[in-house]
């Protein structure tokens, strides 16, 4: 434990090493805990909500993330300048980079996450697989070059090809430091291997500053099921259920839910135990996620990786199990023990999340960027929105496409689903196109209801999907209604001052 791990929140100030939605989510809990926060921001995020909401803020550089959010030196410098005592990495960016944990440890600040050693071992997918095997967790066949340090002789294409034949196609070329599908390519036959290695290596280098790769047998069709763990670093590990995250595009999750539906009770139990054994075997500290693939028989599960950070989809666990994972992270980071009733807690609700990604699902998910005219979120029972944007913001191509998440919770899966569909119907992020229109149809699909979905379902079966379009014949009546309603609305607020950040900010310049 760092020597200044004082347990009084008032003595702490946390640097939020993230942006947008993630930064806002973290600030919310620290505000509740009465811990001060420092936001860091790039030139592109000057006017962002999370910058306003933090107690302190500091510019750390130009818009591209490798000149700002990925600059370890600038983060540490910012923390020193504003007297940080702790750092929360969020997810993405440097959250799984062990050098961040190391740098924070050497400043004698608290790293709200695992120890640098745990981050290094589990973040290295090859080492993580070895640890999992040692803890008795089932793994898929794989191969990694013996020595792969920077500057070492690269294994030849012949080596890669020979090992691929041994594992058998289809397989995955994966970045050793990968995550979020970056630096990962599916290879179905030897002809595609060379290009896959080349592009995976480049993407791995630009995303993780580590171009080491390995091969892994591809299990398909498979479901992606993950188990939430929280360890206190004293050997105590709590399991907070599981999540179903099979609905993905480009290996990135789109719809997630907790608890995972349609899993045999004993298989679920085995996955929970496997996750717990792995976490205990490394004396894990912090929140982590053990990811598994569940094959189509529903009986065989394989270790995929362990994420040593809070996950994007953590809200579904929070809503289904009634916990605040950021608060739990903070507790164990300052050296407190886990609450005794936490492990094996039963879900009190069912929760489903849709990611609001700025991308056009009708056009192969190409990014949709630009200035937001509207940012209208649903607000009714059972709905939580974690968002980093507001009307008038500009969505730039510099960062991840995820703008927000809509999380719907209900007594049953059916109720959560119905609420989420209604929530999507009450959302507008115009004029950008987002992933939620596709998400709506996925939620309404037979596959979703029956649980017969798998990780590549969107790419395989939904490739021809088109966005819903208002029928032409509706135009006249809709315009007439709009004219009437919006005129009345304008009149009724004529005397009121315009509020900032609502849909009624008329950004087209037609002012009342």
């Amino acid at each position, binding site marked *: 434990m760092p020597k200044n791990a004082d347990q009084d929140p008032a003595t702490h100030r946390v640097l939020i090493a993230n942006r947008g939605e993630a930064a806002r989510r973290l600030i919310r809990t620290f505000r509740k805990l009465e811990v001060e926060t420092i936001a860091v921001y790039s030139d592109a995020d000057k006017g962002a909500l999370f910058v306003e909401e933090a107690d302190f803020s500091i510019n750390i550089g130009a818009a591209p993330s490798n000149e700002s959010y990925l600059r370890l030196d600038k983060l540490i410098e910012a923390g020193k300048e504003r007297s940080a005592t702790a750092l929360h990495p969020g997810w993405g960016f440097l959250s799984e980079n062990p050098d961040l944990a190391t740098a924070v440890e050497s400043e004698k600040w608290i790293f709200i996450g695992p120890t640098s050693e745990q981050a290094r071992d589990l973040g290295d997918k090859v080492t993580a697989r070895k640890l999992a095997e040692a803890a008795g967790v089932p793994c898929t066949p794989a191969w990694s070059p013996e020595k792969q340090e920077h500057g070492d002789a690269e294994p030849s294409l012949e080596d890669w090809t020979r090992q691929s034949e041994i594992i058998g196609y289809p397989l995955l070329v994966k970045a050793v430091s990968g995550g979020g599908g970056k630096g990962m390519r599916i290879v179905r036959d030897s002809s595609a291997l060379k290009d896959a290695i080349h592009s995976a290596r480049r993407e791995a280098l630009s995303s993780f500053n580590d171009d080491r790769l390995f091969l892994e047998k591809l299990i398909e069709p498979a479901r992606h099921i993950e188990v939430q763990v929280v360890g206190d670093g004293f050997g105590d590990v709590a399991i907070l259920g599981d999540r179903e995250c099979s609905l993905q595009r480009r290996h990135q999750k789109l719809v997630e839910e907790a608890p995972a539906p349609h899993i045999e009770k004993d298989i679920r139990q085995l996955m929970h135990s496997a996750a717990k054994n792995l976490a205990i075997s490394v004396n894990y500290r912090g929140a982590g996620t053990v990811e598994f693939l569940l094959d189509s028989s529903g009986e065989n599960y394989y270790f995929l990786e362990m994420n040593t950070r809070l996950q994007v989809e953590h809200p579904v666990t929070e809503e289904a199990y009634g916990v605040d994972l950021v608060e739990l992270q903070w507790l164990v980071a300052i050296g407190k023990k886990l609450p005794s009733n936490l492990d094996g807690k039963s879900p009190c609700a069912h929760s489903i999340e849709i990611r609001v990604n700025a991308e056009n699902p009708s056009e192969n998910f*190409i990014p949709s960027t630009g200035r937001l005219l509207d940012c209208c979120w649903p607000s009714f029972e059972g709905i939580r929105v974690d968002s980093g944007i507001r009307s008038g913001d500009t969505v730039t*191509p510099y960062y991840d496409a995820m703008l927000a998440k809509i999380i719907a919770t209900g007594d049953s899966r059916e109720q959560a689903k119905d609420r989420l569909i209604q929530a999507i119907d009450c959302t507008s992020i115009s004029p950008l196109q987002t992933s939620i229109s596709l998400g709506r149809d996925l939620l309404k699909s037979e596959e979703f209801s029956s649980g017969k979905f798998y990780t590549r379902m969107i790419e395989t079966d939904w490739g021809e999907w088109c966005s*819903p379009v208002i029928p032409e014949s509706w135009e006249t009546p809709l315009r007439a209604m709009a004219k009437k309603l919006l005129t009345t609305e304008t009149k009724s607020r004529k005397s009121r001052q315009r509020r900032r950040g609502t849909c009624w900010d008329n950004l087209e310049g037609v002012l009342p």
Partner: protein
Amino acid sequence: MNPDRQDHDWKILDWTPPVLFVERNGEQHRFVLTGSANRPRFSWQGHYQTTFEPAREAGNSSVDGSTVSPMPGTVLEIKVQVGDEVSAGEILVVVEAMKMELPVKAPTPGRIQEVLVNVGDSVAQGKSLVVLSGKEQDREEQDREEQDREEQDREEQND
């Protein structure tokens, strides 16, 4: 269903700005209605509507079958040089945005006539990256260019 009837059958069930809840022929729909009376904006089923026309086809910005940038981003790699013969589906240029790589592939077999960008360039969506000409078309175009040049020369001489 009588199509003439449908325009008269709209009933507003609720208007809690910006959500408009209506019933039409027994079916209920929610719209998010924003903008101004003269320029309303509609989102329906999570999708923002720019027009009421049938869905626009991906056209020029489609990922496969074009030589324009499918999205705003940065040119990461140029895989071809002027004069290269490429087959359909061969990767010409790799564009990156939001940490995502998108290959721009040759829509047809042909020869690279011109590369319009450099590695590291920022490109807008729809920006032409590579000029690709089909083999026969190629020859025709060269002929035409030569004719143009001859004509220009002649005009200049006349001046």
